[in-house]
């Protein structure tokens, strides 16, 4: 099995610290718009929904990539986007069946590549910061 982040949205306390630590760790700034994990918060329904790469067994994004930039990182047992290979065509983001809101796999304008959760190379910061154990790191 592949490593991944699992979420229990009922346990989410709505602090969105996962978004802040993700963007800070990867981009050096706190910016939910660049976070590879997102929390959709509907306050008026009192509902939270998390969006993060599910690390599919047979990923559509990988199959869609024309330059084979999406590869298995054997060391950490996850699929990652090799930024040096990415041509920013966006076919991966279109192919992902969970990405209709462009919150899981999306274009990063500063780096001019598509990005998604890379599990912080086996040390996911969002799981560490989550105060309510709504996020869990499942090692494959």
């Amino acid at each position, binding site marked *: 099995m592949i490593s991944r982040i699992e979420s229990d949205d*009922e*346990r989410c*306390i*709505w*602090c*969105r*610290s996962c978004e*802040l*630590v993700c*963007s*800070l*760790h990867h*981009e*050096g*700034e*706190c*910016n*939910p*718009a*660049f976070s590879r994990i997102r929390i*959709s*918060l509907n*306050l*008026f*329904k*009192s509902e939270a929904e998390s969006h993060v790469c599910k690390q599919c067994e047979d990923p559509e994004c990988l199959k869609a990539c024309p330059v084979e930039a999406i590869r298995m990182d054997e060391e950490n047992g996850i699929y990652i986007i090799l930024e040096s290979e990415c041509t920013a065509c966006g076919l991966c983001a279109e192919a992902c069946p969970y990405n209709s*809101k462009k919150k899981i796999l999306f274009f990063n304008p500063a780096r001019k590549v598509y990005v998604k959760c890379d599990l912080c190379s086996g040390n996911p*910061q969002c799981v*560490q*910061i*989550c*105060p*309510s*154990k*709504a996020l869990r790191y499942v090692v494959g």
Partner: protein
Amino acid sequence: MALYGWVGKILRVNLKNGRMNRADTMRYAKRLIGGRGVAAGIAWEEIPPGIDAFDPENKLIIMTGPLNGTLAPTSGGRITFAGVAPQAYPKPHYTRSNMGGYWGAELKYSGYDGLIIEGKASSPVYLWIKDGEAEIRDSRKLWGLDTFAAQKKLIKEHGEGVQTVCIGPAGENLVRIACVQHGIENAAGQGGFGAVMGSKNLKAITVKGSCGVPIARPEEFIEVCKYANRVAHTPEEPSEDSVLRRKACGMSCSLLGCGAGGLNIYRKVKGKAHPRLYTGAVQCASPAYLKFKPWKAGFEAAQLADMYGINHWEIVLGLTGTGQWLNKCVEKGIITEKDLGVPIDLESGTFWSELLRKIAYREGIGKVFAEGIPRAADIIGKGHEDSPHVAHGYETHWDGHLFGRPRYPYWIVAALQWAMDSRDPLVHCYAEEITYWTARPGSPVSIKQLKAIGKRLYGSELAVDPESNYEYKAQPTIWHQNRLAVDDSVPVCEEICPTIYSRISPDGFGDTSLEAKLFSAATGIDVSEGGLDLIGSRIYNLERAIMVHEGRTRRDDESVIPYFHRPDRAGIRLNVEKFGALMDEFYELRGWDPETGWPRRETLKKLDLKDVADELERIQRLPD
């Protein structure tokens, strides 16, 4: 030079002529950090002293600080609203109100550290800001809507993820206790800034952005934030499953077991006054509504207060609940069923739903209560002796009397803070965290540890000794005034900072340098705890200068005395003579003239406020 923490610009919007321009945040932030500090800097320069809250010349200043929008625990959305406040009494004066939620963070992502709203629009408008671009838009279709409906409509208009602050009917109708509402249970409650928005014909401000907040030392900052989550004090250990019902009250509020309780969520509660389902929250003061009968009708009343945009504090700690003013007025026959226009049932949720509606629309008796309790008592001409009004237009708040917390001698510090402030002082740290919880079962620190904390922080055990009296009470007052000014400016929630005690440290000490650690790693400007407290003192003195410019003197400070002279629950009254001497001591320690209560030139000069001293001298309000 690259800027970290701040995003660099404050947007100025003139609603009368539609003009906008951008001011450099650092012109103010270098001396005053952000939030409450920068708001005071702008108010000092721009708001004409003595102006009425509803005068178009009044400004609504909305400011974030360098930690807003960042991972710093509780800092994310915490934001200051400031200006001349209609709730202030006996006449409107400058003060501030603070709010959590998500809006303050999103404002920074939209590219601005703050907003200065000037003038009055000729017809209802709202402000829409996205990624640096701002637009004043027609809000006639939003006018009249409750705060939930208006926010939903703006989400529909501008898309998922936008954040809004807005007013309901109460703000539109210039109710002096109208709040600025955001989300389901965040509000800038105290001050009546909702009515200031109403007076400007400003229904809402909606923001969205993808500009980030750059952090100077990201990995160090992440570590400090994780450490802050561990070391921060909480009055109780949170239970594992509290997270299923209790939610954070805003962005980056990653602490469980907050003293204010977090948002208590209720879904699809059937209303009694209106046939509809309510989903929302209560927290801090508003769980008191659930004591009305049946509780579902009480919950409905709480939601209606949010939707009308009425300050909960005025209702549940003023009119009813702890304050009991209406209850006592009814008991004494000062207010009758005929005056109220509804059958009296003070324990009924539907009664309160109806009364809240009357206040929001200024109908019948609602017109009187819409003025806030001290003015309402003046209008009625009776009931002053039962009023929960402490001073400056604000009702009971951790003062040890109506509330019963904290106990004597600790409320002496609260009395001194109340005396000197422009609103109810946020005395939580000393009065709640330190001296209230310690006397209760399951206390996180012992009396022995508390005394050691008192010695280390304030210079003497007497500052926190339960057997002490008026000695050594000015020092903790000043320490907390300065620190709270810092915490409202960087900002960080005062429920967790200053972190004076901690459950995880063997000697009970927390870490009062937490703010300095967060600030330094975020901005790259290394500052010590003492350095920040000096800035806190500057902010506090600048606010005092604004008050002095408005005419404040020692006599106004003394207006707290009658309230504190009432017996507390143990029958103890303020000793007026000793309190007078304590005030003298306070003024001397502050470097203010004890006779007038005005700051001295050398005090202001030492705090890099020479320009402020010059202005006070010009208007002849600098002591000889």
